[in-house]
């Protein structure tokens, strides 16, 4: 193994750990009523965000969805600015205007997280078209869930992407549930990847709890998209450890299902892999875990100590460069 590969594996471990610890902390803060609104946790789905983002280049775009904290962190977003946004603070990524469902760092190529299921794929196409028309080799990674694959916008988008041969990698995070409805009850096909065939688009299904499998699939898919062969779809089979939103008691989950999936928890699994293959030492990994814990604590402190935005700032950012200001008339 080259040093570069080793570094990449360590980055994956650190980033999955960061998402795990941040999501756990966020859930705790939410239950303590320190986070307003509601939020969707990606706890358990860390390998998808990290495996995909590890395969992206710096100019590439990312389209997130309502369960998007992990995407932001995996793409290099800052934990402190994320925490501040979740708490509705001025220093947050979106100045307190977006919150959990809309958290994004556009400077990292993230074109929004989205509160509307299935709205991301059409937007991803626009970024792909843009990359193509501007003559770059940038690609777009578009995350969506199994539930989103039942939206009309998703199907319109896949068809158009193929017709226009756009450089988009559609990444399905199949976490087995569309809100409370299990896959078998909401989806006419067994695999979300099967849907790509209707658009003459290559697709694959991978173990979404195996970060290296996700990464490998995304490296291949990114190469496909970047080389001008058009869009491609990766279905990552994974599992949501919490309910649809934090606080959802997940009563619709059958007995034993959680335990079964937890045997395939992506983080202990990758940790064991790193140790068994002498890629990292136990001390090294524990050090990373401790560093991440400290970083997450600091991020929470930063967020808690940040001021709320000035109420009048609600009037800003409705329009841009507009001499009429932001008033409604």
């Amino acid at each position: 193994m080259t040093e570069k590969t080793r570094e990449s594996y360590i980055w994956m471990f650190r980033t999955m750990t960061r998402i795990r610890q941040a999501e756990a902390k966020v859930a705790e803060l939410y239950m303590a009523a320190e986070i307003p609104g509601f939020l969707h946790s990606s706890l358990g789905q860390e390998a998808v965000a990290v495996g995909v983002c590890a395969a992206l280049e710096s100019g590439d775009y990312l389209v997130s969805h309502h369960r998007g904290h992990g995407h932001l962190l995996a793409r290099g977003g800052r934990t402190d600015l994320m925490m501040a946004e979740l708490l509705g603070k001025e220093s947050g990524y979106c100045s307190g205007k977006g919150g959990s469902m809309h958290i994004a760092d556009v400077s990292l190529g993230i074109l929004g997280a989205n509160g509307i299921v299935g709205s991301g794929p059409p937007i991803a196409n626009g970024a792909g078209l843009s990359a193509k028309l501007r003559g770059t080799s940038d690609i777009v990674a578009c995350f969506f869930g199994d539930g989103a694959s039942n939206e009309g916008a998703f199907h319109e988008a896949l068809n158009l992407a193929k017709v226009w041969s756009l450089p988009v990698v559609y990444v399905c995070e199949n976490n087995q549930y569309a809100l409370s409805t299990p896959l078998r009850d909401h989806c006419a096909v067994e695999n979300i990847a099967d849907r790509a065939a209707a658009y003459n688009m290559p697709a694959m299904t991978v173990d979404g709890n195996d970060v290296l499998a996700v990464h490998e699939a995304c490296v291949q898919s990114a190469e496909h998209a970047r080389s001008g062969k058009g869009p491609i779809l990766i279905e990552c089979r994974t599992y949501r450890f919490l309910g649809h939103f934090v606080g959802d008691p997940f009563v619709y989950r059958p007995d034993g299902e959680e335990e079964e999936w937890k045997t395939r928890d992506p983080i202990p699994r990758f940790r064991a892999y790193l140790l068994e293959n002498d890629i990292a030492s136990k001390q090294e990994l524990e050090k990373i875990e401790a560093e991440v814990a400290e970083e997450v604590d600091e991020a929470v402190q930063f967020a808690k100590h940040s001021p709320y935005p000035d109420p009048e700032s609600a009037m800003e950012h409705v329009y841009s460069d507009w001499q009429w200001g932001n008033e409604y008339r």
Partner: protein
Amino acid sequence: MRTITYREAVREALAEEMRRDSSVFLLGEDIGKKFGGTNKVTVGLCEEFGDERVRNTPISESAIVGAAVGGAMTGLRPVAEIGFIDFVGVCMDQIMNQAAKLRYMTGGQTKMPLVIRTPGGAGRSSAAQHAQSLETLFCHIPGLLVIQPSSPRDVKGLLKAAIRDSNPVVFIEHKMLYNTKGEVPEEEYTVPIGSADVKREGADITVVATQRQVYAALEAADVLGEEGISVEVVDPRTLVPLDTETILASVRKTGRVLLVHESVERCGIGAEIAALVAEQAFDYLDYPVRRLGARNTPVPFSPPLEDFVIPNAERIADTVRSMFQTAVYKDA
């Protein structure tokens, strides 16, 4: 000055902006080679700019507007065509939740320089799904600009301004005006977004009318002028932002105001302007504010039914006359 049609004016605006700025491109159903769009606006553009910049799409309005949103966030200036405004029903999410809000939701991290061109309006028996006037829906969504030009000169100048603007613009053309001719300068110009235009000066009453109803109001004004009523016709041209100053100045001058539009009267732009006048020019009024919108029905198919529902010069003139009789409130 030379005279061209409203359709030609739109086409010129598109071509000039595409020549001026390589990030401008068009996308929409059947807008490309050998067809030129449902209303033939884009005829010839594909030949000049190629099919990379004049992009035919599948019949997939969400995918069209979504592609415009993603393009606008990443360095392009997309101009999307939706063949009839009625079709926004199948892509409203991309307009109202994405284009209008992504800048705000990200705390100003992005701009959204896109234009959605779409024809509205009744007048040729297109029935309830191809003849609506839905402008007010968009006025109710902060983040969108809403433009509704009536003349060839205005449609060209405003479309050029809309393409250069950094905000998402719903640019509503009127399907019955495409063949209307008018003077359009040959030299470069734009019309500022947010400026109303006094289409005819008058002393006794202000008629604020939009798009095709501007022509109906002007026709009514001719007739009323012969009867001794001097009508001022104000065309807002853009609904968001609304040029409140020009409208209020006219009302303060005349003391009477009638608001005319083709969208249904209930909650139309007339209601908004009526509230504006009540709030800021009440003391100047000599007569209650009156509205004349389409009747609160879907647009019917058969010509006599459609004529009954949509305002016209005769109904405008009748309403104006009634406003010079003893002040009585309009029957419910």
